[in-house]
């Protein structure tokens, strides 16, 4: 008798399961159809680090003090800087980030006393490692600045020339220059068939 009731109730449980999955069948899909659609990246997303733009001076805040390199657990940062003539502190000339070692722990960003680095929100970096693994952040900074039409930053220029460089009267839209995320265009995406 036990077997009969067990068979019967077991069969009913199977039907309940089928009912649940068929309801899911007719529900919309929950996946994002990359690369036709993309998601918006969280503001605090931890991508690789990059030098911050200082609106007033037009130069990165970094003074090549090496505190970030010391704080890093994975030894991925190598810095160099020079003291331009007439300036009070050093300015960075090379900022080498070996991204293959970085674990995105944020210790460098927190350790920096000059608020010079921040996380970018680049995530679609899949490529041959030689192309992006060794990042030159100063070059990246120069590219970003040129891209938005400001005068290129030159650490070797003496103070007089730097002061004459037009400062950012217009706020630099760092969100657009910072990310390589293609804008989400749901209109162009094919609907999931």
């Amino acid at each position, binding site marked *: 008798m036990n*077997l009969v009731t067990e*068979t019967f109730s077991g069969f009913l449980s*199977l039907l309940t*399961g*089928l009912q*649940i*999955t*068929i309801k*899911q*069948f007719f*529900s*919309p*899909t*929950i*996946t994002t*159809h990359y690369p036709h659609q993309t998601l918006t990246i969280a503001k605090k997303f931890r991508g690789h680090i990059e030098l911050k733009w200082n609106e007033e001076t037009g130069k990165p805040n970094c003074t090549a003090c090496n505190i970030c390199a010391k704080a890093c657990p994975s030894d991925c940062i190598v810095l160099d800087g020079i003291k331009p003539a007439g300036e009070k502190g050093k300015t960075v000339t090379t900022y080498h980030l070996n991204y293959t070692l970085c674990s995105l722990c944020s210790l460098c960003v927190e350790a920096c006393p000059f608020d010079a680095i921040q996380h970018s929100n680049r995530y679609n970096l899949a490529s041959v490692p030689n192309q992006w693994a060794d990042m030159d952040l100063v070059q990246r900074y120069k590219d970003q600045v040129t891209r938005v039409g400001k005068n290129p930053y030159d650490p070797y220029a003496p103070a007089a020339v730097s002061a004459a460089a037009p400062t950012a009267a217009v706020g630099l839209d760092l969100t657009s220059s910072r990310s390589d995320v293609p804008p989400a265009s749901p209109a162009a995406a*094919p609907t*999931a*068939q």
Partner: protein
Amino acid sequence: MIARILELITFLLTNEPYRSVIYLLCIIGFALANAAYLVWVERKGAGRFQRRPGPTESGWAGLLQPPADGIKLLAKQLMAPPGGDKILYWAAPLMVLAPPLVCLLAIPFGNNILARDLNIGLLMVFSFGSINVMALMLGGWASRNKYAIISAARVVSQNVAYEIPMLLVVITMIMVTGTLNLQEIIVQQGGGFWNWNILRGIWDFSSGGWGHIGGNILAPITFIIFYICMLAETNRAPFDMAEAESELVAGAFTEYGGMGFGVFFMAEYANIVVGCALATLLFLGGWQSGLGSGFGTLLTSWGIIGSLVGVGFFFAKMYFLIFSVVWVRWTFPRTQFYGLLNLSWKILIPLSLLTLLLTSVTLKLPRLF
């Protein structure tokens, strides 16, 4: 003009050499097209059940995915594992694809649309349907791989256990229908859908008036038993011991790559087509429309067009059953091996024996009314 074309078609379909050749080609095409595109149905269905789209990139809605997979499989190198029995290793894929094609020869797709009207059609379908077990066993054994051998042993044990209730259930239906001829079985289910074997068993209206007990009063349960046995015979989840992916990697097919694996894959879907076609014609009325005898005579008066409409009804029912096979696969986990055998020996066989006895009693009872 149209009449002449129809006349030509009718001539070709009724005169001997042309007829056999056309049917043969059509059936091979049908079976292979189904085998290929049922993969697409399964992958899209699996995606939808899991709230994702399934293949979408190759072709519109992923329809070019099966040819893409086929080309990929064809391009791979065919290797037999060293030390295994080469002849048996290559014989297994051949043996597994041929039986479903042969079974399809006896299945009536429409009124007058069947390759061979055999008086023992049902018997032929079942005898050929049992060969695929042998092929899996050979494939598993000849691969010289421990996982494959375990899987082959499981498959044989499972198929033997599930042949029995399947045949008992079919014998019950044969007692009700009185014939092994598949076309006859379908013709008997004419009239409304209440005359389909699944419902006619409970109460039979086909002889007019108030009707009487049809014979197999447990017919819906019989249908469920047949369905479960069909799932087990074709090695589909929740009975897919043969290729229990999480345990045995790929079971009996572990050592097969390229088109060898592709053939096993296609044969699985061809078997599902044969199984669902059988379920449709034994229980759900085959190509009968189920909309009443008036509609049925209307279709017969349309000749060949009417038969094609019947084929449409047959496909609708068959593909609904195939969809339910996919549905069941993606809902339930796998049974335990001894659970599978317990289900067969302890539950399905007693139930089917009970159905058999009950049917024989009700058939011999004097007709009520």
